[in-house]
């Protein structure tokens, strides 16, 4: 057991335990028999009903948090404790409900994509167009950092350029659907769009830069000798809607089941800051005035490995207390986009210089985004 864990540091304790968080349904090569239209209609009907109930409950959360705080616990308005309790009782179910909906939807979307399919699309693509396409495919293709190595080998051995492969590897974890919708839910569509747009931009450009640097010789020699992996296309095209719904439900069970303790812990931290830390406390250390705050945020964030869900409440608390948007965004991107466990896994196929270049180029991109937003906003 223990030697297995060593090979993948992500398998240890802490948030890293959710190693395959965000991974899709995977593929089982059993053809599913056709489902009759009535079953499909039934699934569709229950889906609409579930969505209606979800919406009603969601609408009721704010009144409930107020009732819980003031009527049930009879806390006095205005105190720190009251503010912290109300924040937690409102945010915790809200974030979990949003997560459930999004993870389900993304699970269904991902049932249309497989890494094999992404590779077939990308093989032989020219660099610039390939980088753009790879970054976009990285978002919708089910991918888990456990599979980074076989995926990397599968891509480069079948003619996907090295830089294009990196665009995929950068965007897959960085542009995270969970982070995207949580940002939308908590800060509005503008910040969510900024995050998605700059994340994709970093993936495209850093992949392109790595391609330009011509570092193919810094890939371990045996990789190019390996047989091209995953020649099966998978049966994604024949999957019925019933199966897609099950994929969605499976990913909800899988992901929510794993991340909820971190989400709650994150919101509790947020509630603590909300109630107790004075307004603008963070402005001094993480405000846009301090030039060194962005590089510091990136340097601290790169080795850290956390899932997007648990970092968001911290982001919210930091922003709420006067930390600059660019700095916080840079911190968040470097935490979820790059991690020490991932680099250790990639060491099996990449030489140290390429790993350092990879982290350096992506880190530089995040740094630029951070400064850009601190200047613009």
């Amino acid at each position, binding site marked *: *057991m223990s*030697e*297995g*864990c*060593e*090979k*993948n540091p*992500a*398998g240890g304790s802490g948030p890293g*335990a959710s*190693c*395959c968080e965000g*991974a*899709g*349904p*995977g*593929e*089982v*090569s*059993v053809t599913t028999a056709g489902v009759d239209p009535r079953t499909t209609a039934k699934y569709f009907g229950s889906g609409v009903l579930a969505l209606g109930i979800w919406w009603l409950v969601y609408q009721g959360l704010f009144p409930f948090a107020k009732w819980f705080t003031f009527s049930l616990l009879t806390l006095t308005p205005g105190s720190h404790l009251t503010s912290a309790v109300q924040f937690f009782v409102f945010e915790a179910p809200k974030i979990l409900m949003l997560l459930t909906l999004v993870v389900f939807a993304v699970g269904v979307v991902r049932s249309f994509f*497989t*890494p*094999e399919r992404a*590779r077939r699309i990308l093989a032989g693509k020219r660099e610039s167009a390939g980088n753009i396409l790879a970054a976009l495919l990285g978002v919708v293709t*089910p991918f*888990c950092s*456990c*599979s980074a*190595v*076989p*995926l990397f*080998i*599968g891509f480069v051995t079948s003619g996907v350029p090295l830089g294009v492969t990196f665009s995929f590897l950068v965007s897959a974890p960085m542009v995270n659907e969970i982070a995207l919708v949580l940002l939308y839910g908590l800060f509005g569509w503008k910040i969510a769009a900024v995050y998605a747009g700059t994340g994709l931009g970093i993936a495209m450009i850093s992949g392109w830069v790595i391609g330009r640097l011509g570092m193919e010789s810094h890939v371990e020699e*045996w990789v190019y000798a*390996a*047989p*091209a*992996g*995953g*020649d*099966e296309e998978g049966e994604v095209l024949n999957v019925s809607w019933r199966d897609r719904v099950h994929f969605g439900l499976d990913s909800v069970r899988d992901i929510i089941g794993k991340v909820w303790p971190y989400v709650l812990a994150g919101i509790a931290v947020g509630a603590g800051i909300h109630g107790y830390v004075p307004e603008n406390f963070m402005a001094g250390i993480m405000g846009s005035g301090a030039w060194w705050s962005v590089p510091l945020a990136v340097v601290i964030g790169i080795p850290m490995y956390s899932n997007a869900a648990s970092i968001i409440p911290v982001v919210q608390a930091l922003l709420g207390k006067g930390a600059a948007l660019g700095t916080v965004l840079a911190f968040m991107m470097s935490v979820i986009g790059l991690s020490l466990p991932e680099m250790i*896994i990639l060491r*099996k*196929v990449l030489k140290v210089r390429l790993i350092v270049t990879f982290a350096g180029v992506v880190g530089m991109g995040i740094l630029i985004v951070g400064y850009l937003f601190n200047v613009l906003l």
Partner: protein
Amino acid sequence: MEIAILGTGCPKCRQTAEVVRQAVEQAGVDATIHKVEDIKEIMKFKVMTTPAVAFDGQVRISGKVPTVDEVKALLAHDGKA
């Protein structure tokens, strides 16, 4: 039958091994299960996602932890063929 569990040792790969062990037991199939953890060996199976399960060298599941029932269905399917 010879069953290979492909994975570099992440928690999902261990779960997969456990699921396959249970399925084999319940189905009463005569099979040996072994884990393949070396990435070079894994690549010989031509997979791009792990965990993966191969029966007699043929990859049947990849990129997810299967359920016991899924593995049993695959075992029954391959047994007949």
